[in-house]
């Protein structure tokens, strides 16, 4: 029989920039198909084209043997393609039936036909082996059940293909187990599933085959059992295993070892995402935090900076233990933090370059609460020159700058404070190649002057090139510390895939 879905030669450009280049995706009937790739690899674009959210520029989609081009997700749903999102999009105060029948209520004589709707809800849930009172409000049931109800609602009776986009990110272990049960039931019923996730364990637990995407292309399609974890990560990140080991970087390790650390984090635990993370940074050293998405990198550094409250563990900064409760404590103690989301947490779009640059410095620029504009201008001019920020002048609004220049302003926001430690979360995300190189060389120069740098980046090449030590996180734990010759892409990938033991082997063996 022909596959349920086949997408061939899919091209898509956004404002002239290719997001998909002749991408392929073939899903057989009754199979659970993993779709993986780094951020920006094209997974979501592919799915959005399939469900009619975007229009493809070229290529063909065959669904159930017929060529299709859906005009909207609703249109796709009518043809049997359901999408399940990360959050539960239901109304907690209303009954289970109302939630399931929302938008497709049954009417009789112009009134709602409740008994028919209750019956339908019950029948649908029975399909997933959920036997609950459908008249009770949704919130009377635990999250896992709610999630199941959401899935049941999305799937309905008609779905032939179910798309799950990181469905487990908000679930705990038990709930994940329940979800996997549903996936297996769907499979038995002949329904196909496209499963998007960054958690390797999950992929191996439920998926039959995998499509790996990178830079808008489909780079590999294979049965899960034929790919090792390392193959998977390698193919996703696009590095050959035989790649040359990395040579010396930044600071000489020996000199770094001798210095006392500026930051030492031990057994940190924050919420669900971080359970046991330890790392440390010495002055003049660039330390990388590596890991797949959801490994707990961002959550860890946010806790270090006082932006989120840690549940357990010690954070020792500048020889003071657990002294940081808020970002302003961290800043006063000499820490700077560039968040991963420049737009949402970094820039203040309506303010000028000058106001953005001096935002953290402001209290120091003021006497009795009045900003010393002359000094502020002097400092801003200096940093615009030193970092090569391209703008019409300090009074230009930051929203008008390019991503790279915005990022330089944010770096300057911290550099003008003369910090002891700078935490950079994805400092080169969404920045053009030229600016990227400038920012990386600037970071290296600063470390050379004694600044401690803790850097998170999803671009392995970048971390390996810049950092003298790398901590690899995996599922909220420190899986490995790599130093010296072990700082190479192969060891990092091995640690991402397997954790501690094998990373050590890769490093030493």
């Amino acid at each position: 029989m022909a596959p349920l879905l086949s997408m061939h030669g899919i091209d898509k450009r956004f404002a002239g920039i290719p997001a998909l280049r002749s991408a392929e995706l073939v899903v057989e009937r009754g199979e659970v198909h993993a779709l993986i790739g780094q951020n920006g690899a094209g997974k979501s674009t592919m799915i959005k084209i399939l469900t009619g959210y975007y229009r493809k520029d070229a290529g063909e989609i065959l669904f159930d043997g017929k060529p299709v081009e859906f005009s909207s997700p609703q249109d796709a749903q009518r043809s049997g393609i359901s999408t399940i999102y990360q959050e539960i999009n239901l109304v907690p105060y209303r009954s289970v039936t109302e939630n399931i029948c929302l938008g497709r209520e049954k009417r009789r004589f112009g009134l709602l036909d409740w008994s028919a709707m209750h019956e339908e809800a019950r029948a649908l849930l029975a399909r997933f082996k959920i036997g609950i009172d459908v008249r009770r409000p949704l919130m009377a049931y635990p999250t896992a059940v709610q999630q199941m109800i959401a899935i049941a609602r999305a799937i309905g009776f008609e779905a032939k293909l179910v798309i799950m986009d990181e469905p487990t990110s908000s679930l705990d272990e038990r709930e994940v187990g329940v979800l996997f049960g549903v996936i297996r039931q769907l499979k038995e019923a002949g329904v196909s599933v496209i499963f998007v996730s960054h958690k390797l364990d999950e992929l191996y637990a439920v998926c039959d085959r995998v499509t790996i995407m990178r830079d808008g292309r489909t780079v590999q399609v294979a049965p899960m059992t034929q790919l090792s974890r390392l193959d998977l990560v390698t193919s996703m990140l696009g590095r050959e295993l035989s790649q040359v080991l990395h040579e010396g970087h930044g600071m000489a390790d020996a000199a770094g070892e001798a210095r006392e650390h500026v930051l030492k984090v031990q057994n940190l635990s924050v919420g669900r995402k971080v359970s046991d993370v330890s790392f440390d940074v010495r002055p003049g050293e660039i330390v990388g935090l590596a890991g797949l998405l959801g490994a707990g990198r961002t959550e860890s550094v946010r806790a270090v900076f006082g932006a989120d409250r840690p549940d357990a563990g010690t954070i020792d900064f500048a020889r003071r233990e657990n002294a940081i409760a808020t970002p302003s404590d961290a800043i006063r103690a000499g820490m700077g933090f560039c968040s991963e989301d420049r737009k949402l947490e970094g820039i203040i779009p309506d303010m000028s370059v000058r106001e953005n640059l001096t935002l953290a410095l402001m209290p120091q620029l003021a006497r009795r609460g009045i900003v010393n504009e002359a000094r502020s201008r002097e400092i801003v001019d200096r940093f615009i020159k030193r970092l090569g920020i391209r703008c019409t002048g300090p009074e230009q609004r930051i929203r008008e700058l390019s991503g790279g220049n915005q990022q330089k302003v944010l770096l300057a926001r911290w550099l003008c404070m003369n910090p002891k430690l700078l935490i950079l979360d994805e400092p080169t995300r969404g920045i053009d190649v030229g600016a990227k190189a400038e920012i990386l060389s600037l970071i290296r120069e600063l470390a050379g002057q004694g600044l401690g740098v803790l850097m998170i980046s999803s671009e392995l090449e970048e971390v390996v090139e810049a950092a003298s030590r790398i901590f690899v996180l995996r599922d909220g734990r420190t899986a490995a510390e790599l130093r010296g010759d072990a700082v190479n892409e192969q060891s990092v990938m091995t640690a991402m895939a397997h954790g501690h033991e094998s990373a050590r082997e890769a490093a030493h063996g």
Partner: protein
Amino acid sequence: MADTATTLPPAHGAPRFDVRTILTRYGAWIALALLILVNLAITPNFATWQTLNVNLTQVCAIVIVGVGMTLVIATGGIDLSVGALMAIAGALAPLIFLGKLFLLPHPAIGVALAFIVPVLAAAALGWFNGWLVTRLRIQPIIATLVLFIAGRGIAQVFTNGNLQVFNLPSFQFIGLGRVFGIPFQAVLMIVIVAAAAWMLKRTVFGRQILAIGGNEKAARLSGIPVASVKQRVYLISGLLSGIAGLIVIARNSAADANLVGLGMELDAIAAVAVGGTLLTGGRATVIGTLVGALIIQLVRYTLLANGVPDAAALVAKAAIIVLAVWLQRQGRR
């Protein structure tokens, strides 16, 4: 997709002079100028000292409350309790100088306390608003609704629902007095507007207010004490409402807890919106709020002076607000 990102052109930053931007930024000033020109042409006796004074005294309370409202809105919040706080301040002051609360050792002390205590009480209630918003994390519109509802009730409890009538020139100077022929309340208004405008532009506090409204998360990560800044802003709004309450009762020689500041929250918000302050926060102009209040007042005056009934003037006021907010949205695109 690292290799494709190079094709992104750097955003160019040349300032653009299109009609939209000009209308958004200077629309209020243009409207005010047009109104004055129209009035000079059609309204008899417009260019007189008396017309100026009448219009100024009409807007004083709105502008003073509007300044506090501008600051609150600049942080991304809103304060619905301002009218109720005016009523509380207005109810407290006569109780004090009439000696109904406690015995006064000297009338002058009574007048002094009648200025200080009600304003501080209103400020404390403003602080309470801020507390609800920052500590209990209640949305500003709901948090300030608490006092919007309860405040007027509190004022009536103070006065047993009675109208308090008085005649005390030393107290009423705030509403009736003149300095070199200019109403004292107008002088007070100008001073407050100037101080707030300066504060917003030149001080750390002002910059923090705008940073919070512009991007609260970024502000927090830059070490700005978000909660304490917001708390102070609501306190200022309460304090200014207290002052406005005193002006209103002084002008009327009477305090009626039912009427003082009634609907003031909406007038103040309207003035802020028409003045060009962004209702979502992050961009604010105190001078704009003054201009906004003057526009609304002048439209009403123009219509009344030319024989249009007050009811129609209300419709005109609503139309101006819609126009102003629509213009703002144009500028955001």
